[in-house]
Structures are given as structure tokens and as C-alpha cells.
């Protein structure tokens, strides 16, 4: 039993790698005893664990790997591809709420019911569609508007300040001949 106080001097006994910056060396010191299990007992004379690297050990102590260690020792030049390869496509949050929220749909349902009733009020329907056509030589422009707020009221500035509720009960078709 060696009870050691913490020693921060690093005693390096492993071979230093040969090669320049950007070179990484990989070599196993010994074949593993078990395929999937890390090496427990190697004959490397240095403490391979970084955790134990700070410990000063007597020369008589044979170092072993701690549980869960299978160190790689760098001896040969290996070029690691460190170029950016293009990241994966960024994901966007899933919009699980498909369509209109229920509270808004309830409001729409109310207006639809109102448009179909005798108390239609200010709700515009397809019967309120205004159609206009203009021709300029061979070019003809047909416009069909329902509840448009672009038309200015006489003597007013800005957009028309009227309620913009339009309920179409069917298709709105305009054939421009």
C-alpha cells in the first residue's frame, strides 16, 4: 500500500511522439485480453492515466491501467481529417398544432354561423363582392373585391376603418372575358 500525497510533478516515461503539429499517433501497447473489455494490466512503465500522471510512483511499482481504461499510444503519423465536412441540416421545431388554434377556430365558427343567419350584421359575404373591369387596348383587367380596405372613403385619409369580416359561403369565381 502506497499512501501518497498529491504530487503535481509529471514524470514522463513514455516515448515522445515523432512528428510535427497536427500529427496524431495511434498504437496499442498490447493486444487486449478481451474484445470488449479494456486492458487492465499492461506492461507499460508509465502511468498512462492522466489522473495518475500526477502521482510520483516508486520505481518498484508496476503501473496498470485503472478500470475502464484502454489507452492509445501514438507512435506513427496519422493524418486526421479535420476539414469541415458540412454539418447536418438544421432542424426546425415540430409544429404539432396543425392548422388554426381551437380558440381562433371557435371565433371563426361563430362568424360563420352569424353570416348564415339573419343577423349577419357587418359580415361580408360573396354577395358583397364588387367586380370591375377595365380595358387598355388588348389588355383587360378584371378586379373582384370583397371587404377590401384599400378603397378609401370619400374625404378620408388612410385605409377604410371598417370591420373586416368576410365569410365566403362558396367559390368566388370571376370569369374575365
Amino acid at each position: 500500500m502506497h499512501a501518497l500525497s498529491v504530487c503535481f510533478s509529471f514524470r514522463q516515461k513514455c516515448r515522445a511522439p515523432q512528428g510535427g503539429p497536427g500529427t496524431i499517433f495511434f498504437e496499442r501497447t498490447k493486444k487486449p485480453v478481451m474484445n470488449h473489455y479494456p486492458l487492465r494490466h499492461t506492461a507499460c512503465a508509465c502511468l498512462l492515466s492522466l489522473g495518475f500522471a500526477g502521482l510520483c510512483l516508486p520505481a518498484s511499482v508496476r503501473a496498470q491501467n485503472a478500470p475502464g481504461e484502454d489507452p492509445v499510444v501514438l507512435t506513427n503519423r496519422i493524418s486526421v481529417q479535420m476539414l469541415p465536412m458540412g454539418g447536418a441540416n438544421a432542424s426546425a421545431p415540430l409544429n404539432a398544432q396543425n392548422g388554426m388554434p381551437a380558440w381562433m377556430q371557435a371565433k371563426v365558427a361563430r362568424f360563420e354561423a352569424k353570416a348564415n343567419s339573419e343577423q349577419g350584421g357587418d359580415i361580408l359575404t360573396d354577395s358583397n363582392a364588387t367586380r370591375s373591369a377595365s380595358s387598355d387596348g388588348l389588355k383587360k383587367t378584371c378586379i373582384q373585391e370583397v371587404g377590401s380596405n384599400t378603397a378609401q372613403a370619400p374625404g378620408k385619409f388612410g385605409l377604410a376603418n371598417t370591420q373586416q369580416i368576410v365569410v365566403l359561403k362558396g367559390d368566388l369565381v370571376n370569369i374575365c372575358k
Partner: protein
Amino acid sequence: MMNFNRLRSALARCGRWAGLLGLAGAALLSGCATPANPREDTEYQTYATAASRPTVRPVRSVSSFSDSLMCMDRMFREAQLPTTLITSKQIPDFSTKVPVAVKEMIITSLSQMSRLSNAFRYVDYEVDIARQDTVQNLTTILLNNNQIQLQRPALYFSGAIAFVDQSVLGNRLAAGTAASRLDTGYSRNRNATIIGLEMHIGDFRTRTLIPGLDSANEVIISSGGQGLDLAGRIGSYGVQFNVGRDYTQGTGAAVRTLVELATIELVGKWARVPYWQCLTLEQTHPHFQQQLRDWYDEGSPLAHHQLVQRSLMSQGYLANNGMPMDANHPEFRSALTRFQADAGMVVSGAVDFPTYERALRNFVALDKDGRLMQIGWTSTQPLPSAVAAATPQGPVPAGSPPPVAYGAAPQVRNIDLQIENVLVGRTAFEVGEQVFVSASLSRASYLYCFLQEAGGAVLRLLPNATNPNALLSASQAIRIPDWMSPTPGFIMDSTSAGTERLGCFATQEDVAAKLPELLRAPPLAPLLEVRSLDSVGEAFARTLGSEGYTRAAVEWRVVPRRTAAAAPVAAPAPVASR
């Protein structure tokens, strides 16, 4: 005369308007000319610091399989699975609809399966030149100077979020009415989406995926909502009313569920342990958390406190002296924080829902109809309804703690000691060989560990100068020495042939002052006049009584160092003794 009065009245009105306009103009000019004075809002601003803080305590992120992960951890410890180096590829999201850190979830799952067993150690080595940070830069520097020790993984995870089938099911209902004084509208919708995760385990040395080690699972997340819109007139007043309630199950929790299930299946298959026993726990029921929440809502705060208190008594965290304790009682808070630490919770010292759920989740079972039911307790009544023995219906996973009933006598504390070395083809250590031991506690306790060398000298290993605190949690194994720490403090290697023993003693309270000759003496040095572990045990027994502490020991044989031509040594395997 009439016209004159009218003219005077009109002039007076004009004067008033002119005055008002003048005042407004002056105020506008003064407002534009002078800057706002923030000091006038000082009192208001002082509330910002408190207002910016979250108002709900953070909780641990769990899924239906979080208990299964803990079960796997116990199973691995029971099986004495050696530590395996493992890593993972990035787990891409091919659907581009699930922005979730799947790889990090895998790491968390592996870590949670290794708290007690040290079963997996994750190799974290990413090289991405486009994202250089401190760790990557230092790694490059240290590698080039041979000052970092890379570890070779034995296994790796591979996989992807394979698909998202959105809105596989969807229902919508909308209805409205209109009358002369009241209009109504109602809407309801719901839909279901499927997320699929594929994962595999590969052998790193050959970069091949191991046949049979696959996991392909799907989970359903759903959303729904209801809305009501009312408008009408009451007399001459108009009324508008709109309410809605929606729920959307998040992708994060769903993917965590899939990842935890996949890691359990994959490493369970790889390690050849009966992992399915951990997947049949009651806690994996998808309604478990919501059912516990319903029971929590049924009870009052006093009932919550008393239920948790009695649960702590049954699990041995709190002495049952018959005296009720309020929530701020020091003894109760100490027991509660120990329990929360052991349960892997965010330690709060408060009886909130996560604590309630963790304290009572072991007293829940499925009835014959497959519904969750309380065993021995009710939501509103802290007294045990029936001290029924907790007899699990399914197979008991290996290493599971003994079943305990709500209101029953407390469990006996347990210390589990294991030798972590893999002795392939050998049954004894050689002189000079390092020994690695781990200890786990059944509940947080003060732990003192001693080593009896082959020569008879006894040393105290824990606590020591590097790890001076003796109070240790049960949520993680204690490594002796801590070979994963940069400052383990000591190493254990055998200096002479013979039998060595390591013994640990656990107590509820700190007994350093009661045993100064053992616990105040310098650590990692031979204790004077202590000749064996048995004499240490006798000292504990004399001071605390036979019931006042828990003891466990493990021993191993040390043989002379082999020469190259020597035959393998045949010796008894290391055994744990109590």
C-alpha cells in the same frame, strides 16, 4: 341681444379650447425638451431583479424509463460488469423536425446506468475544425506534446431519428350559433404524430455494427385544443368572451423516452443481462407521473408532508420516534435532503411534487385491470391503510433493493463492496499490482474505510486529506481509490504476499469525535495499536452498539510476483464478507 350672448358664449368656448390646446402644446414642448428622468422609476425598477427570476423550482428531467436506468445500473453492479469504454456518433435528425440533442441524451443515459456499476465510461473526443473551443484547442496542443491519454472505445452507438410522421390522425369539430342577442362558437381539434428512432451498437475495433444489437422504436406525441367564443348583447352592452385550452406534447420528452429505451435495450442485449425485467416496472407506465400528480392534488400540504415523512421512515432515512415533525424540523430536512440526493433529484429540501413522487413511487402497483393503485396508503390519509408486504408482481430485477412496504419497519443499511479489477484467468493479485475497489451505500451515510495489509498494519483510507468528507450519497459508487479523479490521493498496491482486507463502516451520524483514535488519526498511515479490521469493528461496536453501524468487508489474496515461466497461481477468488 340674443346674438351678442351667442357670440360671447362662442368666444368663451374658443377661449377654453385655446387654453387647453396651449397647455397641451406647452406640455408637449416641455416633454420633448427635457429628457426622461429614470430616477423617478427607481422604486419600480427595483422589482426587476426579483421579477426576472423563474418562479418554479427546476426539476430533474425524467422519462418513463428513468427508473429502468437505475434498475439497469443495479443489475450491472450485481453482474459485476467491467467498465467499458463507449462513445457515440452524432445522431442526425433526418426528419429535420426534431431539434433535440440525442447524443447528449445517450451520454446521460449511459451515465445513469453507470452511477453504481461504473459500467460505461464515455469517450468524448470530437474533432471539428469549424468549431474550435478551449477543449479542442487544448486537446490538439496536449496531443502534440504527448500529454493527453486518449482512450479507445470498445463500443459505439450509431443511429438516427429516422422519421416523423406528422398528423397521422387528426380530428376537428367546429360549431356555431347565431341569434339576435347571442352568438356562440365552439371548436375542438386533436391529432397525433409519430417519431421514430433507430439505434445500433457497433464494435469500434472493426467499425462494424454487431448483429442483433438494434433498437427501432416509435413514440406518439399528440396535441389538442378546445376553444369557446361567445358574443352577445345584454341591454345596450356588448359582451365578448373567448377561452381556449391547448396541449402539445413536446418532442424533447418523447425523444428522451426513446433514447432511454434504446440504450437500455442495446446495452442490455450486449451485456446479456435480463434487461426486460427493468422495462416492466410499474414506473414505466406512461400514466405513472400523471397519476401521481392526481393523487398529489387530492391531498393537502399537511398530508403530503406526513406521507413523505412516513415514507422516509420506511426507507430508513428518518427515525420513527413517534413525534410528528414539521417541515422545517432540522432532522426532517436533513433526512429529506439525503433522500433527494440519493434519488438523483434536484435537492431542494422541500416537499414538492417531485419529492412526493419519488418518496411514494415504490408503493404503487398495477391492479388486475392494469390500473395504477396505491399500496398501503391513500392520498389524503398519511397513516398506513394496510401494512402489506410489497410483493412485486413480476420478476425482481437483479440487484434490486429489498421491497419495502409503506409504514413498515425501516430497511437495514447496506454496504456493497466490489473489487473492480478484471482478473482474467487469475484469482489473486501479485505483489505490486494495484487494486481497485468500489463501495455503494443503500442510503446516504457517513462512510469510513480501512485497509488491513498482509503484514497486519491497518490504515484508514477514507476519509483522507483529499476526500475529507465522510458523508456520502447512495446515488453513486465510491471508488477506492478514485481512479477517475485527477487527484485520487492514494493508490492501493500490495507490497507483500498474504491476505489483504478492506472494510467499510457506515453510520447515520458523524462519529469522528467518538472514535478519535480511529478517525482523527492521520489517514493513509498505520494506526497505532490497531492490529486488524476486527479490532476496528469492536471499537465501533463499543461506541455505537451493534445496531449503530453497518459493516462490510472484502478481502483478496496477494501472491509473489510471477516470473515469465511461472505457472498461473491458483488461489481462491476475492470474496466479500460481512
